[in-house]
């Protein structure tokens, strides 16, 4: 009877959330035996439920299956990568060859490029400027004469071609 009173007190403490783990274990132990007190019987069901739940376990094969899966994944990973790369291999080889040729060309281009032209000295035009009006007149006259000769050549050629066209027209009529 005394024991039951102590258990009821402990139960109240338990439902208030004030029990320690040791006290909760002693409640579990008490309720694992036969209970005569009808007021305590509903709590036996509760503590039996806890005990029942503590026994639940995953299936034995679960851990084994996990490690099997893990090793299979590890083993198949390089094979999967290889299978993915296989169709790309010819293209990768071609790309590598093109890259090699381009880099070779670039190397040759940069190695054998002619030296950059050095800066040309500025022309001193003042040396060529006419010093007297007579000299300026002479230079201008020579330049105009040269231009006139070229113009005359063009005119005579045009007259010749017009004459040729006229003859061709006569033949056609």
């Amino acid at each position: 009877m005394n024991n039951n009173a102590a258990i009821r007190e402990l139960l109240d403490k338990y439902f208030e959330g004030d029990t320690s783990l040791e006290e909760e274990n002693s409640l579990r132990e008490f309720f694992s035996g036969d209970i005569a007190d009808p007021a305590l019987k509903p709590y036996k069901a509760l503590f039996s439920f806890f005990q029942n739940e503590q026994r639940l376990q995953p299936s034995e094969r679960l851990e084994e299956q996990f490690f099997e899966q893990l090793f299979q994944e590890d083993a198949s990973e390089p094979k999967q990568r290889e299978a993915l790369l296989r169709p790309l291999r010819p293209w990768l080889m071609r790309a590598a060859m093109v890259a090699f040729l381009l880099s070779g060309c670039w190397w040759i281009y940069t190695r054998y490029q002619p030296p950059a032209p050095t800066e040309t000295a500025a022309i001193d035009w003042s040396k060529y400027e006419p010093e007297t009006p007579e000299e300026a007149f002479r230079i201008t006259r020579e330049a105009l004469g040269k231009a006139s000769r070229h113009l005359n050549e063009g005119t005579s050629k045009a007259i010749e071609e017009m004459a040729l066209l006229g003859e061709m027209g006569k033949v056609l009529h």
Partner: protein
Amino acid sequence: MSPESFKHQIMPLKDRMYRLALRITGNPAEAEDALQEVWIKLWKQGDHLLQIQNLEAWCVRVTKNHCIDKVRNKKPEVREWTEAVETVSWDQNPERKAEQQDTLRLIRDAIGRLPEKLQLVMHLRDIEGLTYQEIEEALEMPMSQVKVNLFRARQQVRAQLLNTGLQ
């Protein structure tokens, strides 16, 4: 992390992780699937796992988060514990056995009706026997909240027990 150290450090916690997964999913097959997925998650953490101070609390936390996500991503449906969950009765008399299994189911349902936080706190304390500090770490919940939730959970279950008039 080598498979050997994974086996030695994580696998001793498998029953605890499974029961938590079962509490959240309510279905043994789903709980096992979730557990496999959690192990893969943990395995992928590699050597970081060895730097974790309280590995047990960490595993419980990862399991809880994974299972909650899994349940929330599922189509809404009435969650019922499947009959595949083994029930052990405390009486060998066949007539009483069925009755006691019904009682266990009633209690499971009573706990199952509690809000998620209350259920988890009660599970970790009353079934797994964790200390308040371990529950605090596993559920990322302040200790005061752990105590309040445990108090509420036990009170609600007690009320339901007395209402059903269990003998």
